[in-house]
């Protein structure tokens, strides 16, 4: 008898930050407008959307915080077997907190904490793609101190330093030919750094233009835990060990225009260019290798993607503003590299929201975002697994704004 040797194919990658799954919820007001805010100031959350506009605040201190309640359902239909399966994702609740302070007429400082990656995809332990992914969950907290400077009446600039603390957990089944419940758990956390910079220029009294650049962040994870739950006879082939892996979060450049059509109506359009082509492969380096546990290379070959947004805000009176927005978000995933751990479709986002001032300095913000993930037929060709995918996401979001 030859020695038992199994090969562990590609281990799943660990981030849902795909074009299609980067559910941006860094400000309830902006979310109501199709998640745009590069071309104009819209509260303390502008520290994220365009730090250059922070100084446009009327008050000295502006604080906003809120949370979203994401319910995402991913559907899968195998065109070969006809099997229809669906994720059973728990409710995830990303939050944000932004505070800005006007030090003087020209200089403002801010501090933001937000969670742009708070999603979970749970396909279940025994679904047909279990050897690619069973479930993946990711929490990432961004902390961003920001400074903004008003160069003249028309031109302002701003920049923030971004500290990222991310953690991830993945479960998948191991396709060993012996036993029926062999699984691996990968778990780890890491810190990374980046920046967020913006420029804003008031072209005319009514028309503003903004440009922002969010840097690439390399999430380098070292010393993540690899825990195998395998038949005891396979233990020597799959020793518990550690892994390291690097995932690039791509740079995003955004250009936005805002037009104050009337005193009450603001209209804005935005386009983002996301340099997803940085994400070529996700490679796992295991500290201990065996004949069965080899380092794993997983091609991703993402393509750069665009996001287009249109939004409007109508201020009915001093106390109430209502908002509407729509955006189209292109998937960076090519058809032959579509892995169900990142079920990224082309997305249409439709949102509506309002802000209502309940007492003098306190405003309640609410929005609702529905994201329609267009059906696509794709496969992860290397693993010979694919079918039709479709995503529906609905996100109510609530926040409070405090201006002092």
């Amino acid at each position: 008898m030859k020695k038992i040797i199994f090969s562990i194919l590609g281990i799943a990658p660990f981030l849902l930050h795909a074009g299609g799954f980067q559910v941006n919820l860094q400000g309830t007001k902006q979310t109501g407008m199709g998640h745009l805010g590069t071309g104009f100031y819209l509260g303390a959350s502008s520290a994220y959307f365009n730090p250059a506009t922070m100084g446009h605040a009327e008050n000295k201190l502006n604080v906003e915080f809120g949370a979203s309640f994401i319910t995402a359902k991913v559907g899968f239909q195998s065109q070969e077997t006809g099997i229809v399966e669906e994720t059973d994702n728990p409710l995830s609740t990303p939050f944000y907190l932004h505070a800005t302070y006007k030090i003087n007429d020209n200089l403002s400082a801010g501090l933001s904490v937000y969670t742009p990656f708070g999603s979970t995809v749970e396909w279940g332990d025994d679904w047909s793609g279990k050897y690619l992914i069973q479930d993946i969950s990711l929490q990432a907290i961004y902390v961003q101190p920001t400074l903004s400077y008003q160069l003249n009446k028309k031109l302002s600039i701003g920049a923030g330093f971004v500290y990222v603390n991310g953690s991830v957990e993945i479960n998948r089944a191991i396709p060993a030919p012996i036993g029926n419940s062999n699984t691996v758990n990968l778990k780890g956390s890491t810190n990374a750094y980046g920046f967020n910079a913006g420029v804003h220029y008031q072209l005319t009294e009514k028309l503003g233009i903004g440009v922002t650049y969010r840097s690439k962040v390399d999430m380098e994870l070292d010393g993540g835990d690899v825990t195998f739950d395998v038949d005891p006879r396979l233990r020597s082939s799959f020793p518990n060990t550690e892994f390291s892996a690097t995932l690039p979060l791509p740079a995003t450049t955004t250009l936005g225009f805002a037009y104050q059509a009337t005193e009450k109506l603001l209209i804005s359009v935005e386009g983002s260019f996301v340099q997803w082509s940085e994400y070529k492969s996700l490679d796992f380096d295991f500290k201990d290798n065996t004949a069965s546990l080899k380092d794993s290379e997983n091609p991703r070959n993402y393509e750069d993607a665009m996001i287009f947004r249109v939004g409007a805000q109508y201020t009915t009176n001093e106390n109430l503003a209502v908002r509407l927005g729509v955006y189209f978000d292109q998937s960076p995933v090519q058809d032959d590299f579509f892995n169900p751990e990142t079920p990224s479709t082309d997305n249409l986002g439709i949102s509506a929201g309002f802000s209502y001032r309940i007492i003098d300095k306190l405003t309640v913000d609410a929005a609702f975002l529905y994201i329609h993930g267009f059906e696509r037929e794709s496969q992860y060709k290397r693993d010979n697994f694919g079918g039709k995918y479709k995503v529906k996401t609905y996100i109510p979001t609530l926040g409070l704004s405090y201006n002092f």
Partner: protein
Amino acid sequence: MKTKNLLYFLPLLALVACEPEFDDMNYSGGSADFSRMVAVGNSLTAGYQSNALSKSGQINSIPNILAEQLKNAGGGAFKQPLLTGKAGEIGAGTDLILQGKVVPALSLTMSTDCKGKTSLGPKVIKAPYLYDGTNGFKGSVAAAGPYNNVGVPGAKLTHLNFAGYAAANPYFARFTTSPSQTVIENAMMSNHTFFTLWIGNNDVLTYALSGGDEGGDNITSAGVFTALYKQTLDSLTKNGQKGVLANIPNITDIPFFTTIPYKGAVVERQQDLDALNAAYGPYNAGLDQVVQQNPAFETEANLRKINFQLGANAFIILDNTLTDLSGNGLPSIRQIKAGELITLRTPQDSLKCAGWGTSKPIPGNYTLIKSEVDDIVNAVGAYNNIIKTEAQSRGLAFVDANKRLRELKKGIVISGISFNSEMVTGGAFSLDGVHPSNRGYAVLANDFIDAINSTYGAAVPKVNVASYSNIEVE
């Protein structure tokens, strides 16, 4: 004011309340009528695995998987002669049937070899049981027939139309309605509208498994194969029935023949090397003497000379096709060559501890020498020509099982699972190294579905291979 604005959200909520939905798949039988299917063949049709037929294996058989899928496209009930009792549970193998005993299926288990080394491998660990009426194997179930799965383990093409075959085959004896009924006659009882026929493997495999010429079994000639194959198809398509044929894989690529490497005699210590070469010195010298008397013998002498080196060496085998030099006191032995095969039936402990292949030759009934391999390969090629020609001329669906095994040899990936043709680790074969595993059968069932869909314009869903279970360690 606030309430009024909330109303704006209502249409949005209606839009998102529903789940992601897909268009229904539309299944159909195309030009085929699946209402009554009969499956004719050998162990591969019966669902044989790990050296035995068991109830779970029968349920995992290709035609049973297929029938379940065909129900989406007009397929009817599919009745199998399921084993019951002990036979159903732990399997029925016939190695000791002449001693009145039934051998259970192989288990995957840890065992310690003659050198004290413990490893995971196939072994019969359950006790053989009596071949009598109490264990679910012996005893007729014909009354509950007719059966749709007429797969008879061990059956050759030459057996299908052979009256009296039941007396020689306990698997067929269970469900034949009379001792003189042929397998085909039994199959025809279902009044089938559709059939599968995968036959011919044993017409060459039985010869190969028993070590070729030394095993006492013959390869069915291409001429006989052609005549019988046509006759069988004439019966099965008597009323214009449609069906699917499968061809014969290159059996020399199955793990039964590839697991023990030809260069398996490993010599690690210099003293062992010296002793071995010294022991064969007189044999080599004797060959030189024969050459001196008969220079024409030089080629064979060079082939026969034995020389060991440190590291991996070709095993020594007994080869009865060599010139008989027993008169000179020289045995008919030589080292095995690349491309010649050693069967998995070779006792492992004899190789490891009793000097088989090094100080003693491996007997010929455990090896396939080049002439035997050639005969096997040629037979498979001839059968496959016949099968393909018949499929084409009769407009029947055709499964290229031969191509599937060639692909498997290189490795295939399905839903993230890697398969290859290695023993146990490859995932596709059961523990006997001859028959597929649960997943291997599922892959083949999908090949049958592909062939049916493409030939008859049918749309029959395939099965999810990942949902079929693996071997568990016992």
